[in-house]
């Protein structure tokens, strides 16, 4: 748990304008009250189960396991959720929270569009007015998701300020929230932002790991050696790691986007290559120059293309609870193709980063050991991008 100032060790905090401080305190209070409220918990679990499709399967990937010929590989199938990614877990939780706080409007930012679609979906479901800020560049590379959001009745606002990507969309969503804080709840899409957001988003995502814990027992998985998840802001990774954070025998690996390589300037590996600083209200690892100017990240995957990372991941890195690595666009694309060909599952490019890391760890496993990959989302949204990069197959 974060301390009363919202710190995970040194990381986190509330670096926001005074205008929103009262709203953060209100959110913190409401959440503290609601999270143990039986009716709230029941409503949340109802929608997760009946609407989103939880629990998701922990699928034994037999073909992929045979492909490597070493340990057993399991996929946590978040890609099978309604809207196609784990983002819906948080969106449902926060929409119910917003309603119970009496807020009729929600605002969100989105990178790949998955969080935006999840918010647009719950807005339609619960009759909330929704606006989503999205970088102009992301709107171009994720046009399918833009259409989905609009179809669901959400207004999508292109962001051209700064560099016109996720970080700028986040700033713009925060600015809108600052201006309309009275009737609007801000649904941040990852375990980032000022306290209490990293904690709230983690709590709504930790269901992933809680299910895995149960499934491990049911499937008699005895020697679980690795749990691997991709990390942009880090919500799916936090969701699956959290229940295992104190299990020293299981190696948790967060995989960042190395883009064109961590030795180039074009990557999004905040934990691997950044240093701590403040962006969007929290102190955490950050890609920045000597003057503290934020460096524009790069990744083929819009969902990982963020210069910061959740503060609890920074804490996990420094305390050694989780290892953080990075894989390149090229490696992720190979894994994308591999899973499609071998298992008949098209993964999101984000999740493909976690899958790519199998190349590194599978040779280090024994046949009786197991590996779990968080398959955070499905890849339909990435097909346009894949066509562009991979060309004709």
């Amino acid at each position: 748990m974060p301390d009363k100032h919202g710190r995970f060790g040194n990381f986190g905090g509330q670096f926001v304008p005074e205008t929103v401080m009262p709203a953060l305190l209100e959110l913190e209070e409401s959440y503290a009250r609601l999270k143990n409220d039986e009716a709230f918990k029941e409503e949340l679990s109802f929608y997760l189960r009946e609407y989103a499709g939880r629990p998701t399967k922990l699928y034994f990937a037999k073909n992929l396991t045979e492909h490597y010929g070493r340990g057993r590989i399991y996929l946590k199938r978040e890609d099978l959720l309604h809207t196609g990614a784990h983002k819906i877990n948080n969106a449902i939780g926060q929409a119910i929270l917003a309603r119970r706080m009496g807020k009729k409007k929600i605002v969100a930012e989105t990178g790949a569009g998955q969080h935006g679609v999840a918010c647009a979906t719950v807005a339609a479901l619960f009759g909330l007015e929704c606006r989503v800020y999205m970088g102009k560049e992301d709107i171009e590379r994720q046009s399918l998701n833009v259409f989905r959001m609009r179809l669901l009745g959400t207004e999508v606002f292109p962001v051209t300020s700064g560099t016109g990507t996720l970080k700028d969309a986040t700033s713009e969503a925060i600015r809108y929230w600052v201006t309309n804080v009275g009737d609007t709840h801000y649904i941040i899409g990852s375990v980032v932002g000022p306290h209490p957001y990293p904690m709230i988003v983690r709590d709504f995502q930790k269901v992933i790991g809680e299910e895995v814990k149960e499934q491990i027992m049911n499937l008699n998985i005895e020697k679980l050696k690795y749990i691997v998840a991709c990390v942009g802001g880090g919500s799916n990774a936090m969701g699956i790691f959290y229940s295992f954070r104190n299990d020293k025998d299981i190696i948790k690996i967060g995989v960042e986007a190395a883009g064109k390589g961590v030795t180039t300037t074009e990557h999004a590996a905040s934990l691997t290559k950044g240093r701590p600083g403040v962006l969007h209200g929290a102190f955490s690892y950050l890609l920045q120059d000597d003057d503290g100017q934020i460096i524009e990240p790069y990744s083929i995957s819009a969902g990982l293309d963020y210069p910061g990372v959740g503060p609890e991941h920074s804490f996990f890195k420094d305390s050694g609870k989780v290892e953080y690595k990075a894989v390149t666009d090229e490696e992720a694309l190979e894994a994308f193709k591999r899973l499609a060909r071998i298992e008949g599952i098209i993964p999101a490019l984000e999740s493909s980063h976690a899958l790519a890391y199998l190349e590194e760890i599978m040779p280090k496993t024994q046949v009786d050991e197991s590996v779990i990959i968080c398959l955070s989302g499905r890849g339909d949204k990435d097909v346009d991008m894949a066509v562009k990069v991979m060309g004709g197959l």
Partner: protein
Amino acid sequence: MSNLSEKLQGLKASGRKGLVVYLTAGYPDYKATLETALAMEEEGADVIEIGIPFSDPIADGPVIQKAATLALKAGATTTKSIELIKEIRKASTIPLVVMTYVNSILGYGMEKFITSFAQAGINGIIVPDLPLEESGLLEDLCKEQGIDLIQLIAPTSTKDRIDRIAKKAEGFLYCVSNTGVTGGQHANYEQIGSVIESARQVADIPMAIGFGIGTPEGALAAARYADAVIVGSAILEKLAHEGIDGVRGLVRAICVQLDKESGRYEDSSKSR
């Protein structure tokens, strides 16, 4: 009392309303920032606020965002901004405050940042993303260097927060006029007016209203509730479209209006 509050308290004692003017360091270039700052002092500005350009200015509206982006593109750096402060200080004794985001301070090195700016001659520092809860980060360092850490209150601040913030306030209390970002137009200052009234009951410190004040009339309306007004985006827009002369005109016109509010109708700009 610091130079900054001394100056503003002095104005208050004489029944005059103060004017704080904002420029983004290095926009459109450092020479222009220096010349404009000095020109504004000549026209009657009482305090100059220099914004350190940051890539992700969360509290700023489109005008200041754009100025920051262009300044950075033109090669603005923290080191050059420190030089700018020194240059202004060489030519003037006007109270100077810098407006900067937390990460500019951390990125450059907290101690190095505060010490360098203090030695260059600033009197105060405004950090819009450093609320009460986090201000412990800089308090001691600012005190050590003899500069005021300016606190902000907003229309959304609760009574309890207003009290705690006002008690900590140094230099002046920055009263944010609206829920939102810098720039834009805003006509209703009643809400922040009542927040200011609460603050006055706990602290005897000059109150300055900022955000969305862009015209002489707006300045006049805001000044009724405060001891000073802060004008930023409107000055940058003038600078972009009409150059230094345009800025001079705006600052002069605002001063004339403010002096009316102060009961001085004639030849006001010279009396400042």
